[in-house]
């Protein structure tokens, strides 16, 4: 945990509470101790990531990694992705699309709209643990990106 700054967090965008809980457990089991936030839909995800609304029960934090599901109740994950990439605030925040989608079209759309990675959710929990470890290790610790201050110029 060398490059992380104290105010960073992980944003989990997931409408299925079971999947969200499993992701949180996986993070815990793999010793990723960053604070996390869960958005249940696209609007909530954008509220948090773009700080559009101050949420009383959560302190304002910078997302350092966004795990994005594509099938959301209010708006498509691709739409969320577009808005994230359009904002200077989140332009360089790594977004890993974590989905059950088997459609190649979804994969292409994700990459074309600036997703950093596309991962299919495995059924097997051990495999899922392994994926979460790899994702966090790479995007939080290995990969470097410009600071938000620079990206906002």
């Amino acid at each position, binding site marked *: 945990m060398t490059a992380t700054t104290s105010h960073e967090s992980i944003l989990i965008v997931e409408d*299925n509470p*079971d*999947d969200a809980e*499993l992701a949180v*457990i996986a993070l815990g089991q793999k010793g990723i101790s960053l604070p996390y936030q869960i958005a249940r839909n696209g609007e909530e995800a954008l509220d948090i990531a773009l700080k559009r609304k101050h949420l009383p029960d959560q302190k304002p934090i910078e997302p350092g990694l966004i795990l994005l599901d594509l*099938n959301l109740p209010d708006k498509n994950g691709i739409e969320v992705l577009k808005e994230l990439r359009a904002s200077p605030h989140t332009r360089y925040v790594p977004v890993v699309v974590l989905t*059950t*989608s*088997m*459609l190649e079209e979804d994969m292409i759309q994700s990459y074309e709209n600036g997703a950093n990675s596309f991962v299919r*959710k*495995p*059924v*097997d*929990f*051990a495999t*899922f643990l392994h994926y979460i470890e790899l994702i966090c290790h790479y995007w939080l610790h290995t990969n470097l990106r410009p600071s938000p201050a620079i990206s906002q110029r």
Partner: protein
Amino acid sequence: MLTTLFQNITILISISVLYHFISRSLKGTPSAVSVLNGVLLGATAILTMLTPFEIEKGLFYDARSVVIGIAGFFGGPLTAVIAAAIALAYRIPRGGAGVIPGSLSIVFPAILSIIAWQARRRYLANPQRRKPHILLGTWFLGLLIHASVVFVQLALPGGRWHQVIPLMLFPFLVVFPIVFSLICLLFFDNERITKAAQDLAESEARYRSLFENHHTVMLIIDPSTGKIIDANPAAVEFYGWDRATLTNMHIQDINTLSPQEVEAEMARARTRDKNVFYFKHRRANADPIDVEVYSGPITIKGKELLFSIVHDNSQRIRAERELQALTQKLELQVQERTRSLEEQTRRLQELNKEYEAFAYSISHDLRAPLRAIAGFSAILGESLQEQGIIKPALDKKSTGTEAKASPSPDLAHILDRIQSNVSRMQHLIDDMLMLSRTGTKKMNPQLIDLTQMAREILSELTGQQKDRHFECTVQNGMTAIADPDLARILLVNLISNAVKFTKDRDIAHIEVGAEYKSDIPRFFVRDNGAGFDAAAAGDRLFAPFQRFHSEASFEGTGIGLSIVKRIVERHNGRVSVESMPGQGATFYFDFGEVKQI
């Protein structure tokens, strides 16, 4: 002597006129003509006998032989016989020394002229006849007739012929033949005139009949005014006006076009610019009718008229209209059918899309709860381990074989069963998705190396089972034209079946090969595994979710062969199987007829 000779000639000329007057007046009854002419000429013969000429004192001769000769030559046997009989009836009672030669000079000319008449008839019947020399021919006949008259003078009693014959030579052999010939010319000429008049009358009648009796409607019109000059009975019947009314009408009264238009059309007919016209004609007691008019100029008595033939065209037009209506109806039906086909195709495409979306959504939605079960049961297992309730490092075999009655159920075993079922369900979902995909995937046929593909798949599938012993053979040089993705899925399914069902064999034999018995190469995957009763399985073998072994002995979803069948069918190929229980199985397949890439 000359005076009486001319008298005789004059009589004959006037007789010629009378003769032909009779012929013309009584045409149509030839025997009456013959009889009447016979009587006429007989009377003439008597007339000539009343005006004889004196050759020398006391010796009278006359022109009866000329008259009788004419009667025979022009009138024929009947006329000649009647004329001769009348002449004889007059002569014989007169008696005298000359009665025998006098009678014979009636009979001989009659016989000779009848023979000549017959010769003439034969001659006229010959179509290849040459033009006769009338003057010479008739002169020769006259000569012959009068030579016979001279000859019969031998019958004069007392050898008087010595004196008579030399005196007869000039009038009878020189004058009479020429006279006869000239009178014949006159008769020929009259005959020709009579014949020409007859022909003309016949021809007139024939053409008149063409107009009067033909069932075609005909009109004769004056193109300068449009007045109807004549109309035939067919026209009277067709238009419903009588002839007198029709011939007082103008064609503008009949044609439904405006008078100006009719005049323009008449001008075109007159100049032969156009000869077929399509009009509507009014009728006396019926609606206007469609007609087809053939019209062209003719000249009668120096005046140019239009001769028009009018055909009732209404039936043809009605038939044409009906045909047109029918064609239109047919076209509409075809359009309707096409639309409905397009609609069906569109509907099918929609259904196909819906089906794919449905299959996708099922697999997607079923996967989420499955993931939760798998995840939470895994976490539960770890948590139980941490709390020391179950032992780590599960030994699956001990859980199955040790049938110890335990107060609490074997939690580790239960967790293991949950995990195993989750995994099975996951495979089912994946296979269902695969099955739906093989049915809807876009085909991209190309030349593929089946040998290479089979080798790759074999090494991958057998490589996962290091504890087993495989002997695999793949025939060299197998190629096919097929969709490469689908072909791979097909081979994976068949080869993984072979790997699966040979697990109880010490040495698993798997063979991939081809047969070239027909134009279409037939490929096969053969194993020495458990096999099954192929005959009993029948078509069920390739239906989804069919199993022929217990799940305990061979795990699987029962969808694999359905996928194989669907892939083969998408290539228009066929799949079949040969197998007996315990004796392995051979799956055959082909990719249908060779397609052009």
